[in-house]
């Protein structure tokens, strides 16, 4: 299981408005594209070099494709990254203030301390 790679997905998609829209509209297409083109990119490095070993497990891939923030939390992805990206995708559908944010928290009600470890 790679918490790091889950976080890298959330981090890179969140910072790109086009990727945020693609992830909202067609998550399977976006996750598949991202894993094949972005997963091994060295982010803080000049271009021309890449890593060779990063890939999702089937469970991680499916959790991302399903927009399943509860499973991502259980897997130890960084809660701030998940929350920020999911707000970007779904807050726009709110019918009242903080509606999505509250529902997001309520969906995690089954978790108690200690929460899943987020150390990478």
């Amino acid at each position, binding site marked *: 299981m790679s918490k*790091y790679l889950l*976080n*890298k997905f959330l*981090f890179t998609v*969140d*910072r790109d*408005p086009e990727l945020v829209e693609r992830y909202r509209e067609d998550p399977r297409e976006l996750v598949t594209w991202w894993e094949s083109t972005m997963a091994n990119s*060295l*982010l*803080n490095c000049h271009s021309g070099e890449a890593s060779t070993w990063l890939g999702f497990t089937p469970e991680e891939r499916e959790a991302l494709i399903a927009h399943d*923030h509860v499973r991502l*939390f259980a897997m130890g992805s*960084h*809660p*701030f*990254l*998940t*929350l*920020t990206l999911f*707000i*970007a995708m779904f*807050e726009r559908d709110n019918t009242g*203030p*903080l509606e999505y*944010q*509250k529902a*997001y*928290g*309520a969906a*995690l*009600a*089954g*978790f108690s*301390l*200690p*929460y899943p470890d*987020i*150390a*990478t």
Partner: protein
Amino acid sequence: MASIVAVIASTHHPFYYRASTSTGEDRPPFADEWTRKILAFRETLTRADPDVLVMVGSDHFHQLWLDNMPQFLVGKAPFYDANWYNEEREFGLPRMTLKGQEDLSAHILRAGLDEGFDLAFSNELRIDHSITCPIITLRPEADLPIVPIYTNIFAPPLPRPTRFVQLGAAIRTIIEQWPSHLRVAVIGTGHLSLELGGPRQFGPHGPDPAFDEKAVGWIADGDLDGCLREVTLDSLHAPGNATHGFMDFMLMMGVAGAGVKADYVDTFDLFHTMEAYFTWYPSARGGAR
């Protein structure tokens, strides 16, 4: 030598900018009271009449990332662009450019390294809302040069609370040894109890009001002993999953000094989190110029 004319510790609530500038139906019911408190807090910096701001905050996975994560980083650049696309998107924060006080950055880096803190540095740093929120609340003119100092309260493994306090105390001494006539304010922001992306987020109050009450007491009284007795990396999970940001308050307690009571204390119980505002005037020089 330089003088430290104010030490300020604050929460950084990214919703303040939007709440305080909204009008009509968009203006939330708590905005007027919040703005009143911020204006009073702002006056505590204004009256100290600083020339330079040393700003302690924490990057929220904007420029600093898990492939190369510093624990403590000092910006050393002539300018700092500020705020990011996702902060514009979620909080409506404006883009800003702040001037840097590069000679003070160099002094803090050299002296910090010599004191045993292996500080990272950045010559091109885009800062985020942990530093721009206190600019907006305390110095909205954004006209003073800054030295940004980032801490890692976000991506474990984290330094322990004691290390934050030690760094704060060192920053105090280092600034006071800066050969300059300038008046420096040290401003740091963190959190009280806070939950982000977990089951306790966005409640009617902060996730742990009892912790908040105790924490405000520790800070207001400068009670580092009491605080360090209870606060550990493990204990900070209990009040909320983002409460490690409290360690930036502990750093500021280190700047202010053990046992030194804050000269100004205010709090504001908001949905989601308790706001808290503290100012110390380290010397008689902290008043008017």
